[in-house]
């Protein structure tokens, strides 16, 4: 007799894992010759304008709306939709810089209603995980501690599915979800402009720094605006992750954190 779970480690059933990390992790090893092809990226935001230069085509999308009659309080409507604010388009254009061939999916969770938005964010994440997305970009957050358990469960599920959840931290020095959890790639803005430069913070919860200050970003109606915010830093990290996954599929979230940390400008 064996205790529960030990069958996983029987020689007959034990899965092979890629010995994926080399002794020295270099930019060439990580980035060279890859465009993010085959990597599914969910942009959980305000929608995406697929007609914006360099953004389309999109691989798919859905709108999530609050619905008290739905079992989990929100409903997913699959299909094309517009960008209500411009921000999702900005994220898509940023991700395309590093991962021009990634498969982008727009999951619109912003704009319908404020009430119950944590439930709507969560349902968008669940949909992305059901559709086997590799990377989830969330340039949004909530401080409501009612949602702590809900998002904890979802980011754990993402981790077990090897999906990378990238979240912008908010601007207040208080916990915000889902950026708060250890398995999440939490991102704030640094002053650089180069989309391939990042920094690692040794005092989390915020772990990665990426461009997000005074950037020219895509917006509504084919126009661009000059903007600042951690919400623009997150998609830079998403783009890098998608690019690396295109070349090294199968990395776990913590292997990916190790790779990004090794590539950081402040890595010794």
């Amino acid at each position, binding site marked *: 007799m064996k205790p529960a779970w030990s069958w996983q480690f029987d020689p007959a059933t034990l899965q092979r894992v890629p010995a994926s990390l080399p002794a020295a992790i270099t930019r060439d090893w990580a980035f060279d010759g890859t465009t993010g092809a085959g990597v599914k990226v969910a942009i959980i935001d305000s929608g995406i304008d697929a007609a914006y230069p360099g953004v389309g085509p999109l691989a798919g999308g859905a709108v999530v709306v609050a619905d008290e009659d739905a079992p989990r309080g929100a409903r997913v409507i699959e299909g094309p939709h517009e960008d209500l604010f411009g921000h999702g388009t900005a994220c898509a254009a940023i991700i395309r810089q590093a991962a021009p061939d990634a498969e982008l999916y727009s999951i619109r969770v*912003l704009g319908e209603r404020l009430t119950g938005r944590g439930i709507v964010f969560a349902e968008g994440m669940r949909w992305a995980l059901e559709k086997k997305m590799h990377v989830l970009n969330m*340039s949004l957050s909530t*401080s*409501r501690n009612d949602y702590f358990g809900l998002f904890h469960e979802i980011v754990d599920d993402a981790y077990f599915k090897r999906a990378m959840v990238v979240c912008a931290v908010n601007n*207040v020095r208080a916990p915000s979800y889902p950026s708060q959890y250890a398995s999440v790639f939490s991102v704030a*803005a640094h002053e650089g402009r180069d989309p391939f430069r990042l920094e690692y913070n040794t005092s989390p919860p915020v772990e990665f720094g990426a461009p997000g200050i005074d950037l020219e970003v895509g917006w509504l109606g084919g126009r661009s*605006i000059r903007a600042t*915010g951690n919400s623009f830093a997150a998609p830079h990290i998403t783009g890098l992750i998608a690019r690396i996954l295109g070349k090294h599929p199968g990395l776990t979230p913590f292997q990916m954190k190790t790779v990004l940390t090794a590539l950081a400008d402040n890595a010794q």
Partner: protein
Amino acid sequence: MDERGSTKDLLAEVIQLASDLGPVLRPRGDEEFLQAIVETARLVFDAAACSIALFDEGDEELVFRVAAGLGAEATVGIRIPADRGIAGWALMSGQSIAVDDVRQDPRFAADIAESTGYVPNAIMAMPLESERQTFGVIEVLDRRRGGGEGVDDMEVLALFARQATLAVESSRIFSNLGRALLESAALAAQRDSLRVALQERAAQTPRSQVELAELALLFHDLGVLGPDERRAAARIAEDFLAYARKQRR
């Protein structure tokens, strides 16, 4: 007072409670405090204008409650849909944003010009959010000071946002507390003692307000004890608050 005391007695008890709790039930001048915040923020950033809009849950709209600077008079009272614009995005996403050429967003420019007559170039917006609720947005238009580094500006604005959030939240907590007391009193006047009504109110209250109804019940029970016990309770509450604040830092 007997368990089925007259309406008059119950009202007397409520009035006594309201009088005892007067300073905490509804902090006076939260509107003035919010006004002071936007005026200070405008000066600090040397901005054309600064305003606070609160979210109206019924209509899913942002309502400008206070404003300082250009277009201030026209701005107060304006309602804008929460599903558009820079302020709407900050509110919905829980994220701060600064945009330095908002006129590039044609929909935003048209909306704002129509409502206030002043169209800014730059706007910085930050959500007013506590661990319980999202209340609204603070905005700074055309700031001229702050060193040009957006994130530094945001850290300063975060301090004002925190003050505004605390002001709005404490005002709402205590007006809800007051409402819980008065509704309980009304219930008690019909049938039962105030204490029983408060218990019932706590049992029927939506989950988010249960703590408030329970707090009202505690206040009631404290109210019938002697001054020594009330002072001891206040000291314990103060100690707890100091501890909780320290934990949060």
